[in-house]
């Protein structure tokens, strides 16, 4: 067998993806009311740790960014910075209906309506609020995507960075972000 072969690359991919999907570290960053559903998800009742899901403390260590509910433009700026500080491969989960279409805040002056226009979302979890079962189901979906190698939101973000930046700058009036060299 020759290395750099397509098949051996495939095997490596399977192993890597298996490791990635079974160890998902959530960035503990609660943006909205949905963050209240996370404690029951990780504690005794639903125990997400048995699936390898637990909290990472800083963006450098985390893999998954949860947008838990509505996202004000003020928070969006911080979320973008945090997302860009995370290391590849990284995933975003949109949490609750607010991230899909604005939910009950659809006509608010200071929240965004569709998260997809600002950050690449890999999985949406529906509901207002999604219960821990739904959260776990969302994670299961994400794990399936990761194993199949289809959770490539980070790449999408890199490829369409200009488009994302334009959208982001449209809603964030005082865009003063440091320049990243990634």
């Amino acid at each position, binding site marked *: 067998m020759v290395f750099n072969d397509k098949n051996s690359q495939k095997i490596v991919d399977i192993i890597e993806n298996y490791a990635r999907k079974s160890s998902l570290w959530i960035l503990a*960053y609660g943006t909205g009311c949905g963050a209240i559903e996370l404690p029951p998800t990780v504690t005794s009742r639903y125990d997400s740790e048995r699936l390898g899901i637990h909290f990472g403390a800083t*963006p450098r260590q985390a893999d998954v960014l949860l947008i838990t509910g509505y996202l004000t433009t003020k*928070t969006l*700026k*911080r*979320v973008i910075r945090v997302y860009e*500080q995370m290391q590849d491969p990284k995933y975003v989960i949109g949490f609750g209906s607010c991230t899909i279409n604005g939910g009950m805040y659809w006509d608010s002056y200071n929240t965004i309506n569709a998260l997809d226009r600002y950050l690449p979302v890999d999985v949406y979890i529906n509901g207002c609020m999604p219960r821990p079962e739904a959260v776990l189901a969302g994670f299961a979906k994400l794990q399936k995507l990761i194993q199949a190698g289809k959770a490539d939101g980070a790449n999408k973000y890199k490829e369409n960075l200009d488009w994302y930046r334009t959208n982001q700058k449209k809603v964030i009036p005082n865009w003063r972000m440091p320049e990243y*060299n*990634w």
Partner: protein
Amino acid sequence: MNMIYILFSIFLAGAILTWVADKISGILRDLFFLLTVLSATTFFYLKIPVGYTTNITLAGLHLQWGITAFGWYFSLIVLGLGTMAAFYALSYMKGKERLGYFYFNFLISLLSMMGILMSRDLVSFFIFWEIMTWSSYFIVIYKGKHVQRSGINYLLFSAIGAYAMLMAIVMVYAHTQSLLIPDMIQAFPFFTLSAKIWLPILFLTAFSVKAAMMPLHVWAPDAYSDSPMAYTSVFSGALSKMGIYGMVLVFVTMISYLPNDTAFRETFAWLGAITAIMGTLWAIAQDDARKLLAWSSVAQLGYIITGVAIGTELAILAALFMAVMHALFKGTLFLVVGAVEKQTGKVKFSEVSGLIRKMPWTFIAALFSIITLAGIPPLGGFVGKWMLYQSLISSNHVILVVAIFFASTAAFLYCYKFLFGFFLGQEEPEIAHVREAPLLMIIPMLILSLLESILGVYPQIIFRPLDAAMQTLGFPATQVHFWNTSVLFNEWGNQVALKPLFYAVAGIFLFFFLVLTIKGWKTTRKVSTKDISTSGEIPKQNENLTYSINFYQPFLRAVAPAMKRRMMTYYREIGSGLEAFFDYTRRLYSGNGQTYAIYVIIFVVLLLLFKNSLFS
């Protein structure tokens, strides 16, 4: 012509020429200064072999100058560090005022230290000791904020030491009618008991002032931090070792002959350990880098004093080895602070941070010296520490070893503070203009730190002269054949082989360093220190997030009871008590003739009353 005369003439003539040349041109002055140091060093090592002696008769006194292996060992510290600091001083002192004065005193203090090492009689020893005190005093008051206070402190304590030594010398002369040190050593076992006890106490007082032992240390932090760093490196590295030089002599040649020497040894060992602990605690609390290093010098000399006081063969070996290591690393660290001070104009940890990218070579020198200071293998500091612990354990000083261990564990705290405070942390826009120190300052620091790492693997470079020195002191020849193989042995036969350890450490480090570097070489990138996880907040360009205020607050809170009282307060209380007493006696002179008449009458009455007992 006598070689020792020539050596002293070189120093003296060089010092005067440098001083005169300062009036003419700066380059000439620098040239003379450097030439003097270099020529004196080469002359000493080429022309004056160990054992060279010369006799002088001065005003009826028989004096003797000469160099023993023991003095020669300390000359390595004086001249080696002196040369490095001299090179450094040329660049560091550039642009400062009264350079002739500074260089003159620099050279004179080198001269006086060599004089101390070469004196074989007590009078010249005392004279050179005083020259050393005065030349260093002149540099302490050269420039600085509080020089008046620190200068007076230094001079006062040095005076106490000098008087003690003078009394001891008079006592020796009264007993032996000779001023030669060998005569004193030979005659000592036959002295009366009170002389046997008082002589060491007086001498040790003199020496422990210079070695900054508690409770005679209060001059040291101020004096070390107020003199220019180029000299402080010699001051702390070499000049304080003169105290150790004297202490070793006293402990080996006098205290061993005391009928009950354990009390002496234990007292001094514990004073050394307390010095080490308190020096370390105060070093941790400092924000000024110079003060931190000054307190750390006090603490490090505490270890050395403990080793000397224990006085077993291994302990003295350890102490003398640590003396050289201390000269190397503390010399380098003071030079590092000087470089930072020169380049940024700041010496406080809370004012400057993130210099590593601006001054990488300075950082490397600081890193090596700090590792040596902390005693971490595989650098040279470990050898000294290891031998000290072994000697303490094998001589059953159980609590002492724990005290020393605590001091050196707590030393990691200020070690980290030093490196972190200056070189790590976030970069500020204020230091954007800072550049690496000039080459003339970098090279001495790097040479010294290179020596530290070489001595960690090949300590025999130092052990050979050290062994000769120990034999001069009357110890049997130590395990030279073991030293040759870079293996350390303790008294129970346990061993540490330094070379394989070094290779193992280097190999493991290189392997994982390569793993870290090669893995994802292309996708690994460096980001600025502003790009940190701050919960999404974006630090502004001029916003410095480096943690440097109240750096070890929790630790200091835990040890607060030990640091509540300072020695200085006690001295102040004694001082004000004396002042009040003198003020009271002053009132006797009331200026009234009647009062004086009463005094006379009282005196006469007293005389009459005690007539029988007084004049019988």
